[in-house]
Structures are given as C-alpha cells and as structure tokens.
C-alpha cells in the first residue's frame, strides 16, 4: 500500500511539467477557437483596405464605424431598439402574472396549456413564420413594425414564460403562506410578497427577452422585409453581398450588448434561463 502511494506521488510529480504544458496548450487552443473567428470581425471593421494575402489590412481607419451611425444602419438600429423595447414590455406584462399563476395555482386544462407553450420550441420556425406572413398580409401588418413586434412577442414569450415560472418556483412558498395566514388576499399576496421577491429574476429574464428581440433574425426577415429592417437583417444582407466591413461593423454592434450582459450577469445565468439562446 505504501509502495503504491509513493509510486503514485512520483507519478504526480513527474507529470507536473507535462500537465502545465497541457494546460497551456488548452488555453491557447481555446482562445484560438473562440477568438479566431471573432478577430476577423474586429479586424475587418477597422480595415479600410485589405487585399489577400496580407495578414493585416493595408490601411486602417474608422470610416466604416462612422457610416454605422448614419443612414440605413442607424435606421435599422433604432428600429431594432424600438421593437425590442415594446416587445419586452408586452412580454413581461403577459408572462409575469401568468407564470405566477402557473407556478402556484391549479389552472384548467393545464396539460394542454403546457403543451401549447412548449411545442413551438420543438418545431422549425421558418415554415411557421412563412405561413404567418400570409396571415399578416391579410391583416395588413406584414412589412410593418406591428407585424414584426407581434412575431417577436410570440417567439420571446414561449421562452420567457418558462424562465418566469422558474423564478416564481424558486421563491419559498412559506412566505406567501405567512401572508395568507395574516389574512392577505390572493392579489395582495402577489403584489406585496411574491412580486417584490421576484424582481431580480424578472429583470434578468426581461433583459434576455430584450436581447432575444434585438438578435432575432428569421421572424424579422419573413415578416418585416423588405420594409422593416433590424440590424441582423441588415447584417445578413451586407454579408451576403460581400460588404465585409459593413457586415463586420454591424456584427460587432449586434454582439456587444450580449457580451456585456454575459459579463454583468455571469453568476445569474442559469441553464434554464438561457434556452432561448439556442435559437438565435
């Protein structure tokens, strides 16, 4: 036994330099894999002139960044923010009370409602939105902000409802029971006990809704185009047209809010909160 322990110790000691090298290689490889593609965006966004096969651009500049703050792109940016703000407000207004009810009460035909809210996550959305655009044409809201906002509300809702339910489920029920035992009504208990406790969770999930709407692509393209453009759609068009600089600047503008959110809320980002990010 003692022999085994010594042998093991020796093995550990001998492998230390090897282990450090391995770890270093892991860091280098990870940075390469993650930042490699992203570095392309950053370099291209500052490249005035970049001809193959130079590793770096022949001349640098910020003229494409300046372009981002006027004309079409500014327009798309403002559109996107406007749509995202309205979407977030409406989604939160719909899903907070509903999530509370789903977390705490028996509701009629609950299984049906659960399936209704779960299934949209499991089916391809492009063919669905294609048919929705026909409906919206009939209602005269295709190619308009109203139509895009409606799609975003629907798409963000099916994710946010589950986030909100888990927020309310994580609040200890005893606190609400205490309120009831003091004679508080259902409504009062919700507003005075459950809601204040849920505020951090609600803020986190409404930020995710905001980000989802800001990044949403398929629905905006199917319903909004060609009249309503947001940055992802604008970016897609310019990347497909090989306008590398414009596309890269737009990409970075789209990406920055998400990265900031990741940095600020790293600790709060639980897996169940983030399932919407598998789709955008």
């Amino acid at each position, binding site marked *: 036994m003692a022999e085994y322990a010594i042998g093991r110790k020796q093995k550990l000691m001998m492998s230390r330099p090897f282990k450090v090298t391995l770890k270093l290689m892991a860091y280098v490889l990870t940075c390469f894999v*993650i930042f490699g593609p992203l570095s392309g965006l950053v370099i291209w966004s500052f490249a005035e002139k970049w001809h193959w096969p130079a590793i770096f651009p022949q001349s640098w500049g910020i003229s494409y960044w300046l372009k981002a703050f006027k004309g079409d792109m500014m327009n798309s940016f403002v559109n996107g923010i406007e749509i995202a703000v309205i979407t977030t407000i409406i989604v939160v207004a719909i899903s907070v009370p509903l999530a509370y009810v789903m977390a705490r009460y028996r509701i009629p035909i609950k299984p049906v409602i659960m399936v209704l809210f779960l299934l949209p996550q499991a089916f391809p959305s492009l063919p669905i939105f294609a048919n929705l655009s026909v409906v919206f044409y009939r209602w005269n809201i295709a190619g308009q902000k109203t139509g895009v906002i409606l799609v975003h509300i629907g798409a963000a809702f099916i994710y946010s409802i589950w986030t909100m339910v888990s927020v309310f489920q994580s609040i200890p029920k005893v606190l609400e029971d205490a309120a009831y035992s003091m004679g508080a009504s259902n409504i009062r208990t919700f507003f005075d006990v459950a809601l204040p406790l849920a505020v951090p969770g609600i803020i986190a999930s409404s930020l995710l809704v905001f980000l989802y709407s800001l990044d949403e692509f398929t629905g905006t393209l199917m319903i909004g185009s060609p009249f309503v453009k947001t940055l992802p759609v604008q970016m897609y068009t310019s990347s497909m047209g090989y306008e590398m600089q414009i596309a890269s600047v737009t990409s970075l503008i789209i990406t920055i809010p998400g990265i900031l959110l990741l940095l600020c809320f790293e600790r709060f980002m639980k897996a169940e909160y983030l399932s919407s990010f598998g789709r955008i």
Partner: protein
Amino acid sequence: MNHIKIMEKLPDRRKACYGLLGAVIILPAVILVLVIYVYPFLQSFISSFQSHGSFSFENYKYVSEVYAYDVFYTIVISAISLLCVMLIGIFIGGYLIISENKVLEFLFKIPLFIPFVVVGHAIRTFLAPKGILNSLLGQIGLVNMESPPDFIYGFTGTVIALTWKQMAFALLLIMGAFESVDKSYLEAARNFGASGFKQIKDILLPLSWGSIGVSAVLIYTSFLQNFSVVMMMGKGDGPQHLMIDIYHRINYLNDYGVANALGVISYILAMGAAIIYLRKVLKNDG
C-alpha cells in the same frame, strides 16, 4: 407540531384559478400562441395538400422527385453537427467540471451570446478561401497562396459554424446536468486513481443521461430549423438545407404548396425529437 395545524387551516393555495381574473391572465397568452404558432402550423398542412385550388398530393410528389436528397442532406448535416457538439459538450464539459476551470468555462460560453447570423459571417471571415486562417497558414507556408483551399462553403463550413455556435449551449446544458451530480462520487473515484476520462465516462455520464437527452433534442431542432448559418455557409449548387429550399420556394417562386410540403417534412423530422422533449419536460414538472 403546532405550525402544521396552522398550515392546515390556511386557505387552499392550490385552488383553481378560474373566473374573470384567471381568464384575463391566461387567455392573452393562449390567443398569442394560437395566432403566432398554431394557426400557421395547421395552415402549412392544409396548404401542402393543395395544388391549383384543389386537394392533391402533387406537392409531395414534386418534393419526392426534386428534394429527396435535400431531406437526407438536412438530416445528415444536423446529425453530424449534433454529434460534434455533444462530444465537445460532454468531454470539455466534464473536464471543466472536474478541473473547476472558470476561465475556460467563461471562454466557451461566449458563442452563446453571438447570434447565428453573426456566427455565419464570423466563420466566413475566418475560414473562407481568402480568409484569416488561410492567410495565417500561408505565411508559414502551409497553404498555397495561389490557390487557397476552398472547403468552407457547403457541408464542412455549415457543420463548423453550427458546432462553433452551439457548443456553448451544449456546455451550458450539459454542465448544468453534471453540476447536479454529487461531487463526492468524483472524489471517491479520484482517490482510487480514476483518470478524468474515466470519471466522465463512468460517473458523470451515466448519472445525467436524461438531461443530456433533452439537450441533444433542443440542439438537434436548432440545427434542423437553422436558416441564417446554412444560408450564409451554403454553396450555390449541390444539395441544400431544407430551410433554404423553403425560403427559395416562397421568396423567388411564390410557391407555397411545395414550400409547405417541405415544411411539413421538416416538422416530421422534428417530431420524434419533439415527443422525447415533451415527455421528459412534462414528467419533470410532475
């Protein structure tokens, strides 16, 4: 014991939420989902069986003649990307849990917040024939500058871009599952000299199959329904992802019949996954 009696006297908290207030809370959401998802979903079935204003199987016949290979291609591309993502998720996720390496964990989570459209463009700048990687490799003489290798558009590029984006999501979900495994099992295994690989294979994996299955389903559907990356990494000729075919049919040919037949096929491809997902999630809810 006293507090239990008090609890019993409380009004029944699990009482049903009927009445006007309940309806006001529940109905808007139900109507929203019915309009945005259920109606268009049903409409695609109806439209797929209509040709020249009457009921027919014409659209499906056309699909089987023209798009059969694309259906196969879509399945293969989703399956291979899923395999890559799950392998990365399980082994890197397992390693990150065992080594508790927060820095690498943070790095791997970055792609989660980068939308698919941006990923498509980023991978293009990086891996295109005249992209950054070839330029770098060219400097050290590994790549022929005159005719840089062009493998990125089509199958390979799509798989790489999809894998790059979703590995963060897979890590998030799988590490969440691994996180709930009791750490003392790992410690015990380590004391007996189990390697990292063994700890993953024999402890972490068997204890979290259920959650890993759900993650796989979610990721598979996200590949099946992806539009932006497959469009940006696609090649003009050769087989196409079903979503591109649908978009093409609608946008350029205004042919909703065939587009919806393709859509219905994509629903069927997602159906198995959807059922597994639903059963698992509803079971968890109790």
